[in-house]
């Protein structure tokens, strides 16, 4: 696939301090093929194994680098953080202590990072999960940040992209966490009605309450190769049905086969696929020209209301090349 290679241009992960999730040292063993791979080589390839295409896990900041134009990300709603409303305490410690420790260890304020950025010059609103923060779990603060990002997208008429990487709802906030499923989905209802695009990107893993709310509700649902995607955990299912699970169960490939993921996209292709989708969903520069002929005549074609309502048109020279915008992407399953 030629466009795969082109997509990699200009996408580089900066060596940031948040890379703690990845193994240290010059060399690292690939969990996919067990080969020893050179870290510099991996880094150049967006942490995808060059031998077996295993996708090493990334933290939220690294995903921001993968998904957005360099230097365009502005974080939003960083001030929203978790409390311990239920005074929850498990066998080991209090939730509030766990939160403090996690914040110090990860240098993050919550399990999701939200912000505004550009993708191929086009303004987007973004949410990116970080699994190292309590398994990317969704409590009140995560739900609030996703909801506000959604309302931000609505107000700016910018597409919303959420990259999920989460084990589901956060137990420590019990039913408050559960209600975040309804809350985030309610905001998506508004986007749906206003025809503001929402693209869900499911990374490894996307399960439980995150999978059973906004992450499954994309106008287009994308997934990273081999990502675990599902509602119930494999252990729970095995214990319930008292049988072994079929091979490849709950992988992105399995879920696509079942009809719930439109497209599996490797990390290197992600940005260009997103660009292609946004051109389709929001309109492109070329389309703009075609819809507004120089002759003073009412346009024959359908209006593109989402495009017209966009208060911040994208700069003209950064939108897709003809080559990119006409290339077809095979979408699978019902929308």
């Amino acid at each position, binding site marked *: 696939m030629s466009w795969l290679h082109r997509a990699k241009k200009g996408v580089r992960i900066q060596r940031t301090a948040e890379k703690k999730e990845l193994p240290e040292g010059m060399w690292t063993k690939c969990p996919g093929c067990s080969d020893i791979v050179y870290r510099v080589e991996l880094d150049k390839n967006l942490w995808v194994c060059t031998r077996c295409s295993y996708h090493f896990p990334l933290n939220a900041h690294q995903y921001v680098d993968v998904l957005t134009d360099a230097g365009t990300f502005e974080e939003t709603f960083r*001030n*929203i*953080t*978790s*409390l311990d*409303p*239920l005074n*929850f305490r*498990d*066998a080991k410690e209090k939730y509030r202590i766990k939160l403090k420790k996690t914040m110090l260890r990860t240098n993050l304020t919550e399990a999701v990072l939200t912000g505004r950025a550009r993708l191929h010059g086009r303004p987007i609103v973004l949410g990116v999960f970080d699994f190292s923060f309590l398994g990317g779990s969704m*409590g*009140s*603060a995560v*739900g*609030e940040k996703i909801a506000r990002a959604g309302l931000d997208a609505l107000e700016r008429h910018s597409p919303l992209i959420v990259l999920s990487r989460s084990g589901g*709802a*956060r*137990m420590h*906030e*019990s*039913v*408050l966490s*559960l*209600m*975040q*499923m*309804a*809350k985030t*989905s*309610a*905001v998506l*209802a*508004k986007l*749906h*009605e206003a025809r503001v695009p929402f693209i869900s990107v499911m990374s490894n893993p996307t399960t*439980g*309450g995150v*999978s*059973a*709310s*906004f*992450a*499954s*509700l994309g106008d287009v649902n994308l997934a990273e190769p081999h990502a675990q995607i*599902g*509602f*119930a*955990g494999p252990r*729970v*299912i095995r214990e*319930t*049905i008292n*049988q072994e*699970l*079929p091979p490849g*169960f*709950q992988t992105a490939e399995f879920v696509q086969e*079942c*009809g*719930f993921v439109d497209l599996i996209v490797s990390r290197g292709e992600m940005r260009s696929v997103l660009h292609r989708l946004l051109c389709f969903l929001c309109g492109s520069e070329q389309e703009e020209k075609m819809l507004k002929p120089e002759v003073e005549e009412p346009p024959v074609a359908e209006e593109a209301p989402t495009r017209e309502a966009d208060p911040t048109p994208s700069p003209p020279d950064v939108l897709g090349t003809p080559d990119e915008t006409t290339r077809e992407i095979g979408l699978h399953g019902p929308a």
Partner: protein
Amino acid sequence: MNRDWLEFERPIVELETKIGELRDLAGTKGMDMTREIESLERQAEKLRGDIYSKLTPWQRVQLARHPRRPYTLDYIEALCEEFTELHGDRLFGDDRAIVGGMGLLAGRQVMVIGHQKGRNTKENLLRNFGMPHPEGYRKALRLMQLAGKFGRPIITFIDTPGAYPGVDAEKRGQSEAIARNLREMVRIAVPIVVVVIGEGGSGGALALAVGDRVLMLENSIYSVISPEGCAAILWGDRAEAPRAAEALKLTATDLDELQLIDRVIQEPNGGAHRDPLAMADVLRDVLGAELESLERTPIDELLENRFQKYLHMGVFADAET
């Protein structure tokens, strides 16, 4: 004694059995037992007060799952003058873990939908213990949209351990089915009243529970995970479920305090299963009053209120405000 009774209910049930026997004896033998019976009834009343006024969260969980507790179809039968069940999601099949249909409730045409548990092995096989597959949620949504289209209000009854965790459920998109209901229920342009009658088990409960009014029966529960599941994960032992039940704040009073529901409905002393008809009478009045007030609200306002209600759920820190 019948194994259907919970451990903490036994002293009361024993006493009540004794009273019953004395009454029978008095009836058949023509003996005057009034004083003995009165005395025992005073004892029973006191015992009921003692036991039911200080139930632990774990005891509430047991009451919410009580094998004698009234289920959705019991309420439908008691509340509706007429009920015609409608089947199927028009996509895959008919999931008997969720029932739905057209009801006539105090002269009002309503769509009634709810999780349905079984009371014996045969019923539970049919109802899958009240744990729906995706086609159940899709049937529910289809019926809700039908009601929306023809302007009939919706009542849902919530009573499920959770959405079924199985291979076929995953294959048919359990996540997508639940998620879609959450998004679409916000938009259905008729009043929706939700009543948690037993177990509100996580996303599988929530998928029928987005509405203008969410009510919980006094001994019902609502949680993100079962106490057993939570105990297994956080305490490494399912036997710690009573402790997890406490930590999860899953009782009706807890949810009311967290402002996640609109009101708690008192149950007859000892729980809904001790007097199902009295419970249904209370419910009929409550539902009638709620629907009446919702029907007076202009639909745009109703929808905006519904949206705002869910938008404001959650407790978090916001450093700027």
